[in-house]
């Protein structure tokens, strides 16, 4: 396998970034968008070539460009490791990335910073590719930080709105907390095993006493990037960014980085079952919590954002149960249907002229046929209706949970039933009944151009058919990932007995019941959600997102602000006074001395004579 092709995969997006970054302002929008899209498409082609290779030969490729850092007892290479896991991520990053770039060329068409947008987007893809292909933890960290930076830039892309800037800062700071965990994990791993290289780690790792701290630190990093409790609050706010960004970064790719990292380090996590247990519990709890919040959101993108958090929680549940390939499966199917849903919501927002509140939508089915159909398919997929992709992946997670821990299974099942409800609520409120917006908006309604609907159609097809890669009992994905995952026999229930079919049936019935409740509520009775201020009871708790933001505000932000103002006003003033007083003494002395020089020549002469007399007196009388 030629390493040039592999490196080209990484280089194309970087070239796109550089062209749009340096000359973007001089290029027309068409050229600028075409360059960015082609750069990712080229990466997709090389990814496919690599995928075909590794599917056949099973041999991972390691490319070391140069020795990056050298310490006493270990070195860090600037290298890339292309294996089965990286291949999967490469495929869907560049594949979905191409579709979203294509979509963006139309969606962002009226934006004044068109080329800047594509610079950031290409840059993001570049860092994401580094993250998934880095051959050691330090390389992965480069990508990890890079995607965080691009996420920040793109959330705050419409920088003239201060709320959006705040959302961007929140995302960045929350991610920093996680990144600190990543660094601690790197340090402990390097200290224990004297290497950061994934291949070497896989062979050399053993259960060291402090390994639990390292894996826990890595998990904290994952909670930051992949929006889990307690660091998830940035993701819903991140919806401030343009919708394609939400689709690419905050649904399909970047937020799955945590799952990728844990899957990469599966051999370390397998050694620390306690941490795995924490991961499973946090995943399940996050999943249910985010699903309940999504029930009462009225912003179309916020519903999808909480849905993403909830789905990521399910993936972490699978990771925590040691079913890495199941988590990866759900990552892939989720990337398909969630990207489709986000792009669909973007299409809707585009049609209504920026409106995101579902209470002002409705009836769009008549105006936007393609968007409606693709959205409907993706909704069915995420709700877990057979035989769409979400059914297979979600059911495998539920089955795994059922075999390990019945409580986790109940939580996860509840979350997935709620998923069906809020997704159909979203669908019915947006596309059914009559339009509830203003007259002007109603006249403006139109189907999006084909550049935007084409990605929707492709993604909807993938969302429908994506489950084929891992059909229970005959899973291509499990076979493919075998070399990556060390203990891969431990988790997966290959045998499909009566219990399994019963559980599947239960899940489907749960989703159907949700569908009918949503149908009765929002189509038959034509209910529209009330104002957020008029809710009560449990609903109020959900609307206020369990007061998590308020709690963070009270226990972290406010004490920090207090300390900040204390040091600024008191300590800083004190130190400043001391330092300044050193300067003030000579200044005061010279000010007094200056008065002697008053310009009166008589006085100068007088001083001169006195001085001469003094000198003479000294010379003659003292010797």
């Amino acid at each position, binding site marked *: 396998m030629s390493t040039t092709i592999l490196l080209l995969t990484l280089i194309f997006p970087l070239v796109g970034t550089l062209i749009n970054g340096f000359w973007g302002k001089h290029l027309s929008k068409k050229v600028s968008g075409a360059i960015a899209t082609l750069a990712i498409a080229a990466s997709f082609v090389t990814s496919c070539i690599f995928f075909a290779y590794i599917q056949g030969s099973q041999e991972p490729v390691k490319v070391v460009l140069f020795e990056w850092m050298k310490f006493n007892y270990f070195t860090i290479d600037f290298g890339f490791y292309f294996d089965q896991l990286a291949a999967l991520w490469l495929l869907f990053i560049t594949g979905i990335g191409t579709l979203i770039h294509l979509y963006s060329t139309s969606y962002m068409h009226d934006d004044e910073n068109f080329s800047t947008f594509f610079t950031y987007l290409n840059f993001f893809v570049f860092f994401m590719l580094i993250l998934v292909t880095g051959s050691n933890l330090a390389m992965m960290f480069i990508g990890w930080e890079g995607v965080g930076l691009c996420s920040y830039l793109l959330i705050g892309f419409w920088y003239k709105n201060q709320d959006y800037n705040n959302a961007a800062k929140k995302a960045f700071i929350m991610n920093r907390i996680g990144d600190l965990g990543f660094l601690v994990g790197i340090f402990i791993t390097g200290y224990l095993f004297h290497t950061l290289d994934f291949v070497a780690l896989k062979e050399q790792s053993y259960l060291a006493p402090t390994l639990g701290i390292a894996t826990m630190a890595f998990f904290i990093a994952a909670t930051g990037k992949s929006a889990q409790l307690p660091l998830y609050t940035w993701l819903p706010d991140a919806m401030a960014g343009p919708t394609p960004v939400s689709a690419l970064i905050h649904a399909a790719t970047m937020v799955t980085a945590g799952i990728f990292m844990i899957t990469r380090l599966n051999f370390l996590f397998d050694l620390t079952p306690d941490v795995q247990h924490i991961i499973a519990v946090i995943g399940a709890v996050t999943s249910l919590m985010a699903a309940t919040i999504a029930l009462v959101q009225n912003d179309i993108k916020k519903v999808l954002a909480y849905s993403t958090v909830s789905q990521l929680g399910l993936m972490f549940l699978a990771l925590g149960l040691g079913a890495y390939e199941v988590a990866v499966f759900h990552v892939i199917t989720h990337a398909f249907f969630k990207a489709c849903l986000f792009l669909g919501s973007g299409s809707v927002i585009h049609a209504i002229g920026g409106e995101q509140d579902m209470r002002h939508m409705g009836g769009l089915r008549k105006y936007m046929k393609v968007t409606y159909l693709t959205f409907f398919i993706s909704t069915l997929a995420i709700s877990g209706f057979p035989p769409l992709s979400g059914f297979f992946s979600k059911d495998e997670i539920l089955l795994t949970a059922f075999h390990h821990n019945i409580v986790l299974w109940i939580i996860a099942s509840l979350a997935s039933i709620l998923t069906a409800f809020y997704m159909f609520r979203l669908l019915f409120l947006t596309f059914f009944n009559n339009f509830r917006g203003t007259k002007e908006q109603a006249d403006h309604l139109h189907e999006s151009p084909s550049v935007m609907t084409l990605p929707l159609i492709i993604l909807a097809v993938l969302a429908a058919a994506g489950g084929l890669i891992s059909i229970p009992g005959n899973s291509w994905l499990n076979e493919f990932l075998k070399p990556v995952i060390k203990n891969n026999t431990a988790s997966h229930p290959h045998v499909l007995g009566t219990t399994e079919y019963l559980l599947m049936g239960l899940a489907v019935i749960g989703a159907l019941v949700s569908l009918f409740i949503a149908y009765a509520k929002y189509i038959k009775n034509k209910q529209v959600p009330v104002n957020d201020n008029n809710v009560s009871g449990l609903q109020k708790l959900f609307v206020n997102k369990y007061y998590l933001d308020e709690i963070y505000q009270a226990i972290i932000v406010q004490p920090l602000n207090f300390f900040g103002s204390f040091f600024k006003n008191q300590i800083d003033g004190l130190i400043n006074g001391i330092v300044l007083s050193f300067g003030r003494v000579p200044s005061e002395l010279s000010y007094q001395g*200056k008065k002697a*020089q*008053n*310009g*009166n*020549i*008589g006085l100068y*002469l*007088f001083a001169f*004579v006195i001085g001469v007399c003094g000198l003479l007196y000294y010379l003659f009388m003292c010797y």
Partner: protein
Amino acid sequence: MEHVLQQIGIDQYIYLSIILFSIGAFGILYRRNAIVMFMSIEIMLNAANLLLVAFSNYHEDANGQVFVFFTMAVAAAEVAIGLAILVAIYRNIGSIDIDKLKNLKG
């Protein structure tokens, strides 16, 4: 018979010098007219010259008198420059009262 000047002791010359120098010094301190101050400086200069000549004679050494010649020549040059400066000052501020010369005040 000795010359009458030689009958006067060295003490008297020293006293005369001191008196002349003091007159000059006080003139500098108390007068504000630049020309008068200039004259006072000349008096002090000549007090020193007188002393040099007196000691030269006393020690029977001609070096002192050579010094005085040089001093007088330098003083002449100094007067020429000094008076030119005074004229320039007068043209600028219309007065030679040194109390009005405060432009250099810091």
